[in-house]
């Protein structure tokens, strides 16, 4: 992406986050939870971005396997990084929300919390895998495979509240009767849009940075090669045997 379009996305994201924040603050108190319910305006968009980001990593992996385009690999990698960040944010905001409302910030028996934590660590593993393989093509291939396999967790996390009995509440927005008042729904939708713009900005800049890293790596590889040729001197066998 061009630098200019990234800057435009940045500005839009800042404006949208400002709007989202305003709507979140102005939203009424919730009947049962009071103002604690407003944490959903950060928590739900964070979880949405995690799903979106890992979906883009999946698509990037598939595109790389088909077309071997370095751009697809860079987008997949950048998106996974952003996804890990927002998965972490969803976990942390969930704890902050859970402590006053449930009376606990974590429950080891809850399927939503456990599956989200597993998803977080698997994608941290994806990032670690990337760093452990020096060869770009091997790295891209293995990452693509892991990025595709790891995505099975996304539906598992999403449907965990439907499949299992959980402490975490069930789905609100994506169901026919959507038991949410318009003031909350409006603020939530604006924040979902705003966070999506933040995702585009983060992933866009990170992909750009990844391209620069690749260019630097290539340039260093070339210069290493020149030095390697001139730097080798013949072993001084006479002195060595003399010492022994």
């Amino acid at each position, binding site marked *: 992406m061009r630098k200019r379009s990234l800057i435009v996305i940045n500005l839009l994201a800042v404006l949208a986050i400002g709007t989202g924040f305003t709507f979140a603050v102005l*939203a*009424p*108190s*919730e*009947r*049962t*939870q*009071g103002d604690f*319910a407003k944490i*959903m305006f950060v928590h739900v968009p964070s979880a949405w971005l995690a799903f979106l980001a890992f979906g883009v990593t999946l698509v990037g992996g598939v595109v790389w396997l088909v077309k071997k385009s370095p751009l697809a690999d860079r987008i997949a990698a950048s998106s996974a990084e952003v996804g890990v960040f927002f998965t972490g944010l969803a976990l942390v905001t969930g704890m902050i929300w859970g402590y*006053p*409302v*449930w*009376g*606990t910030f974590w*429950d*080891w*028996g*809850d*399927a939503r919390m*456990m599956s989200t934590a*597993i998803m977080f*660590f*698997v994608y941290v*593993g994806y990032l*670690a*895998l990337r760093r*452990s*393989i*020096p060869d770009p093509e*091997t790295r891209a291939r293995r990452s693509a495979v892991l990025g595709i396999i790891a995505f099975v967790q996304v539906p598992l996390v999403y449907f965990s509240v439907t499949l*299992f*009995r*959980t*402490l975490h*509440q*069930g*789905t*609100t927005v994506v169901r026919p009767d959507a*038991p*949410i*008042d318009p*003031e*909350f729904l409006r603020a939530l939708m604006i924040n979902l849009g705003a966070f999506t713009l933040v995702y585009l900005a983060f992933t866009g800049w990170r992909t750009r940075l990844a391209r620069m890293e690749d260019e630097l790596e290539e340039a260093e590889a070339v210069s290493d090669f020149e030095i390697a040729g001139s730097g080798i001197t013949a072993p001084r066998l006479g002195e060595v045997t003399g010492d022994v």
Partner: protein
Amino acid sequence: MPYKSFVLPAIGVVVLVLGFMLFGGLGDNLVYYLTPAEAVSQRADFPDGERFRLGGLVVDGTIQETEAGVTFVVTDGDKSIDVANSGVPPQLFREGIGVVVEGSWSGDHFESDTLIVKHDEEYRSEEDGAYVPPTGTSG
């Protein structure tokens, strides 16, 4: 080789951790809590002192503060169980709200030491109806 020396043990660790989480942790907890009807019908499987989680709605007008904490009745609309909880319940604890209590049978009632509130997925503004400020015994 950095790849093999790092990735293979890492995959091993991940598989072990996932296996533990799925079959050790979540496996036991696939049923996160029992409803009062299930707890009553499975009474024989849970002798006094055998811990499990019990989840249901707090029946209106049954909350009573005691020296140790609070007593109330949980129901699933089918069966109801008397609960004696020791400790201070969370702020949102009130009549009609969902709770998950952890403890064990003690004769005909349930003794719990952990009480968490399980609120529902509805978000309604205060103006929609009378806002009931938390009536928990905390504070």
